[in-house]
């Protein structure tokens, strides 16, 4: 009997774990992306005049949220590119002319503010192209929201299901102790006095289920992390969050929810029996 409760709580929490890891990873990616792309790149035409350059600088400075404006020559850009390419940099040695444009790197406080900046700069003379990454981030955020909402719905449903399972399990214990409860009521026991041991039982089920699922989720994720982190990085240029960094969050969340489900389940199961 207890097995059903513990298993159902564990199952709910494991699914919760998957959703949590997903949400945390996406949050991680979003934050990373925001940090990485807190800049707007303004590519300049090769024949831009000094006057036009000053206009670009002045315009950028006048826009709120702009932190700094750095000029990057084509030579610097190539140098950076070589660094980025690392071992493959020799491929760049053979270039006859430098194909990269001169550019301004404009750092902004928040990518949300960048739109304004981009609109006012891209039409200026001498500006070839303005690049920023708002689209990517917007898409990521929408995606994260879907996961979050979907996850919440799934979890809410599962929490209800497991409260129901727990309350039915405890109902069996309760009805086997019906006589005792009945006598307690006649002697003047308060409902909370009678509930106490059953709530403890439910909470113990919940905590036990939580511990099991913490182990499973942690080790499963560690395994995944050890085997997939590199390939994940190669595909998406982001690292997964490390298992250690989520362990304490997961533990706290699981133990709380597990205990909560257990307590709710036992309170529900006693409702009928306390009306003597």
């Amino acid at each position: 009997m207890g097995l059903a409760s513990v298993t159902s709580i564990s199952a709910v929490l494991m699914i919760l774990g998957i959703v949590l890891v997903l949400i945390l990873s996406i949050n991680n990616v979003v934050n990373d992306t925001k940090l990485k792309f807190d800049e707007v790149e303004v590519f300049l035409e090769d024949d831009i005049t000094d006057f036009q350059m000053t206009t670009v600088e002045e315009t950028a400075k006048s826009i709120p949220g702009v932190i700094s404006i750095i000029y990057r020559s084509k030579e610097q850009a190539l140098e950076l590119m070589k660094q980025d390419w690392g071992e493959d940099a020799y491929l760049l040695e053979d270039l006859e002319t430098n194909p990269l444009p001169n550019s301004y790197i404009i750092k902004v406080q928040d990518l949300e503010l960048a739109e304004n900046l981009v609109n006012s700069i891209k039409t200026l003379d001498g500006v070839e192209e303005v690049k920023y990454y708002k689209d990517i981030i917007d898409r990521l955020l929408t995606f994260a929201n879907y996961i979050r909402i979907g996850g919440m719905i799934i979890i809410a449903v599962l929490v209800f299901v497991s409260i129901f399972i727990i309350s039915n399990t405890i109902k069996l214990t309760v009805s086997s102790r019906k006589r005792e409860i009945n006598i307690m009521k006649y002697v003047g026991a308060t409902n909370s006095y009678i509930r106490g041991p059953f709530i403890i039982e439910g909470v113990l089920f919940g905590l036990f289920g939580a511990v099991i699922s913490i182990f499973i989720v942690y080790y499963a994720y560690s395994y995944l992390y050890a085997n997939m982190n590199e390939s994940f990085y190669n595909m998406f240029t982001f690292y997964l969050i490390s298992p250690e960094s989520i362990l304490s969050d997961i533990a706290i969340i699981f133990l709380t929810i597990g205990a909560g489900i257990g307590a709710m389940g036992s309170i529900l199961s006693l409702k009928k029996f306390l009306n003597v």
Partner: protein
Amino acid sequence: MIRFVNVSKEYKNGVIALYDINMEINKGEFVFLVGSSGAGKSTLIKLLLKEEGITRGKLYLNGTDITRVPNRRIPFIRRKLGVVFQDFRLLPNKTVYENVAFAMEIIGASPREIRRRVPAVLGMVDLSRKASSYPDQLSGGEQQRVSIARSIVNNPPVLIADEPTGNLDPETANEIMKVLVEINNRGTTVLMATHAKEIVDSMRKRVIALENGRIVRDEEKGGYGIEI
């Protein structure tokens, strides 16, 4: 101590189990509640214990109106009323001592009080030697004495017994009556529902007779009557 004023009880299925009951039981009285099966004796007791709600009328305990009380107050009303049932209602997995101590634990008595009080009450019902026995090792009379001990261990001002001798042979029943009388002599008000004609006739206590949910007779030092 206990006062019923125009009390009626209609069960949800439409059965009118009590009709316009008026009675007053004073502190220290010993009262028999008699009547044929289905007359409404148990229903009257259930109203007192707040196990069933009252349809019409008013009910007072110790001067307090307990006609309608919120659920959370019911346990505190029951602590003023010791109860004994025909079927003893002991916990089979607890010893005699534990069955009695249990009633004190429930109301939050200290372990010291429990250690002092339980043996004294077991002495009163003459069960000191059986303290560590389990209910299934006891005779019916002994089991009923345990349940009486449990009902008075918290010193309630009123003891209510619903056919406490119903499952016992006449001789054992007499033992139980002696215990109840002794408890009454110590000042506890006793209300006992019963079918036992001989007991009622021999004791010459106040008798309230119910018939079809109405009080048909209420006499001091009465007998069981012949109408059954």
